[in-house]
């Protein structure tokens, strides 16, 4: 059996939007290609910031990150994107004034060949989009927009996809469908790093999860462990999110 090597490694990573004011502190995560890793935690814990750091969209960073074994510390977003990372921001993640097809073309802007074919492949993954490629993105529903955003990020054949709260503001039914799509894409060989507010549901689909509090990783475990952990359950899943979340650092499961 060959050694299982992480797709993404982040080590002792700190950074923020303003020099000197760190939002995440000394964070370390690994992601393997065959897993879905979900970051949960209360509002303001630095989850989205961590995701941005991974794709090189954070203005100030210290620490190291590796991607497919290569040291990519300090790489800019376009460079990360080009090397196989797809990024779906939480808001404003589609070009609303462009059509579905044009959105995908923009997603594949860096492709030199096979643009047309890839658009066909990506569209085939999302029947809702495939049926009307010339529709303007502004006319899509929330769930369809999220799918378009993912489809756009898939245009460059990424090996890893970073999703920032893909199910925020979606109805339960739409959430279920979206998670299923995410899972399907994952099964085709894409590592998934996801930030989620709908923690219980996300954990069901996740292989592994980390809990972030105040810019640090407070807990780490498999999805099942997290779901069954009384601590997480009491503090995080059962109650209103982010309220009364009191886990001592270093506590184990």
């Amino acid at each position, binding site marked *: 059996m060959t050694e299982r090597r992480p797709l993404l490694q982040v080590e002792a990573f700190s950074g923020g939007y303003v020099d000197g004011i760190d939002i995440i502190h000394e964070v370390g995560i690994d992601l393997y290609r065959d897993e879905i890793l979900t970051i949960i935690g209360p509002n303001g814990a630095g989850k989205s910031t961590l995701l941005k750091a991974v794709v090189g*969209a954070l203005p100030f960073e210290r620490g190291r990150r590796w991607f497919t074994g290569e040291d990519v510390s300090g790489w800019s977003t376009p460079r990360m994107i080009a090397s196989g990372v797809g990024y779906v921001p*939480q*808001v404003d993640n589609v070009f609303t004034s462009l059509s579905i097809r044009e959105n995908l073309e923009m997603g594949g802007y860096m492709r030199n060949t096979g643009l047309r074919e890839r658009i066909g492949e990506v569209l085939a993954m999302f029947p809702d989009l495939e049926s009307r490629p010339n529709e303007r993105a502004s006319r899509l529903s929330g769930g369809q927009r999220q799918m378009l955003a993912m489809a756009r990020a898939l245009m460059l054949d990424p090996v890893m996809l970073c999703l920032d709260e893909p199910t925020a503001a979606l109805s339960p039914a739409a959430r279920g469908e979206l998670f299923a799509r995410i899972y399907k894409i994952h099964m085709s060989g894409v590592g998934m790093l996801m930030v989620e507010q709908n923690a219980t549901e996300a954990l069901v689909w996740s292989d592994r999860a980390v809990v972030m509090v105040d810019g640090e990783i407070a807990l780490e475990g498999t999805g099942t462990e997290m779901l069954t952990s009384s601590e997480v359950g009491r503090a995080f899943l059962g109650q209103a999110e982010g309220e009364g979340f009191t886990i001592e650092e270093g506590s184990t499961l």
Partner: protein
Amino acid sequence: MEQLLVGAITLVTFDGAVNWTVGFLTTVAIFAILALALNIQWSVGILNFGVAAFFMVGAYVSAVLTLPAPEGLEAYVAGWGLPIPVGWLFAMVSGAVLALLLGIPTLRLRDDFLAIATIGVAAILRSIANSVEGLVNRSRGLNGIDGFLEDEVQGGGYRWVELAIALVVLLAVYWLVTRATASPWGRTLRAIRDNEDTAKASGKNTVRFRMGAFILGAMLMGLAGAIYAHRSGTISPLTFSDLLGTFFVWTMLIVGGSGNHRGALLGAVVVGFFWFGTPLIQESLPDWLGSRVFQVRQLLIGLLIVVFLLWRPQGLLAERDRVSRFVSQGPEDSSGGHGSRWRRLRERAVAQLPRS
């Protein structure tokens, strides 16, 4: 006013120098009022590119109200020979009315539309004054406008009175805007400028507050126009060009430092000295430059705006304790360079609020 200054161009005698300085200070005081008024508007994010329009309306209204009835070739409305303070009052009222008319359609909309509308209203007012017969003498302009208290003063001392009038009004305006800025009303204005959404969320009717600031500024601009008209005695549509009436004032504000009333004053003096001082050195310049000095002056005014925006956005006098609207709100990713990251961050924060 330029003619006045050019008339005093030879500073060879002591009297000449004194006269020039008095005239210069009077003019600068009037422009300083404009700069303060513009600052009030700018401080709530109103981009008024039509200062000349309000300046002009004030000047014309006060002039036609205080002039005697037209004779001979003259053809203008009113001409009731009213006392000059009444003219001033109506100059302010007319500025306010113009602001109200302009503000109603545009203040609710995108910021840029007001800028376009104001630059347009200046153009249309000039063309009305120029082309409608029987309104304000068309391009002949209005002449023989009385100076305030001119009859009471004998001999050549009147220029000192003019200076005193301009300075007293300037001080009053300065006091007013300082008080206004420090009041709860002013604090709200600042809050609106810094973050309109938050101000809205805390229950402030931002459109009304911005309209208030727009009108206040417009009234003061009208007043400046009236003082100008009675001081110079002659006004014509040409006087109120965009360059002198609007951009010049903007340069003062940007050079001096916006969001700071003392900065506006300083800017008026510095830029005013640069502008009105240029003709003084014209004769001592080599011919190739001397003959083009006015164009060079215009070039430098534009350059001043750009240079200050780039290298000293806070102006000569930085706004105390507060971040000026020109100053970066936070560091930007230099490779990215899209200025909306912070806006999107805030929007994201709003989006994460618990939904009711």
